[in-house]
């Protein structure tokens, strides 16, 4: 299985998915077709857990701006992590700037919805 790296654009974050268990999404997320854009990311993660997950999976998400379909997608994203959280050690850092109220609220929503996941809010 290969690493997946997607460069940042004006509307999409930089995404680095490493088979060593370090997954990161950094930047803005308001693509025109959010689900299409993230399809390879979801596929990679599914495949990763099915085939050869690392001992520990660390997810760093630093999304400074996102549209509503992105936040829907992040829920799906976390669903995927939750499904795999019994058999895997997964930690998620939701990173945001102190002044970014929207990002903070989204992080709180995720924690509320995913009781079984280890999601940490990290302010910059």
């Amino acid at each position: 299985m290969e690493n997946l790296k997607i460069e940042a654009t004006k509307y999409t974050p930089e995404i680095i998915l490493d088979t060593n268990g370090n997954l990161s999404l950094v930047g803005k997320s308001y693509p025109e077709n959010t689900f299409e854009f993230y399809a390879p990311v979801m596929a990679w993660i599914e495949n990763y857990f099915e085939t050869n997950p690392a001992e520990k999976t660390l997810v760093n998400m630093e999304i400074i701006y996102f549209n509503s379909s992105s936040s829907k997608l992040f829920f799906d994203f976390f669903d995927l992590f939750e499904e795999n959280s019994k058999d895997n050690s997964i930690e998620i850092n939701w990173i945001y700037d102190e002044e970014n109220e929207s990002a903070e609220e989204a992080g709180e929503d995720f924690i509320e919805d995913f009781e079984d996941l280890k999601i940490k809010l990290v302010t910059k």
Partner: protein
Amino acid sequence: MDTHENKLISEIESLQKQFLSTTDKLVKDVKRQDKIMARSDKRQQREYDELMALKIEIEETQREVVFTMGAIGESRSKETGNHVKRVAEYSKIMALHYGLSEKEAEMLKQASPMHDIGKVAIPDAVLNKPGRFNDEERKIMDTHAQIGYDMLKMSNRTLLKTAATVAYEHHEKWNGTGYPNKLKGEEIHIYGRITALADVFDALGSDRVYKKAWNDEKIFKLFKEERGEHFDPKLIDIFFDNLDDFLEIRDSFKDTVS
């Protein structure tokens, strides 16, 4: 019979379970969607508010910068800050009576204080000379229109473009004897024609280093003589038809005696 019944019940119970788990998931999804929607609405509201606040900030900054630039120009020639305020107000009501839109009239009001910004480049000895200029000094003084235009013309902002036109053409005369380009009649932009009249009206009525303020009678006589000469006849008519408005502005922005 009993076993058959039991089987049915267990099938139904299994269905019930499936149904419950599916509806649970649906409820969860709907709740999630609602949450996303509510967050999104809140965010949109916040973003729109921020956008509007920024817009006001930009407009006010622009206004202040433009006004301050005008005041700098005026302060160099030891005139009072109220001169630019009055010229701004005169220009706006003249623009409205001439038939320009409220938006354009307001734009002109904000831009007109910069009509003399080119004076920042005129040496003090010329700018503040008491008495009449000789030919050489007059030539230097007259460059302020071109200089003001050159300072402002690069901008793409409507307000600064308006200001550039005002700076460039406020010394042109209706009969073609003004400067810097000896434009004639409606070749002179309406902004230039309006500011010319507003500027002269205010200058004549104020004390300057080289002259005392004229009384109204003398000013009105000159305006009548210069109708169609120095000034656009239509604007002179507007001036006299609405004289009270102009005098009211003059009263409310009086220069304080120092």
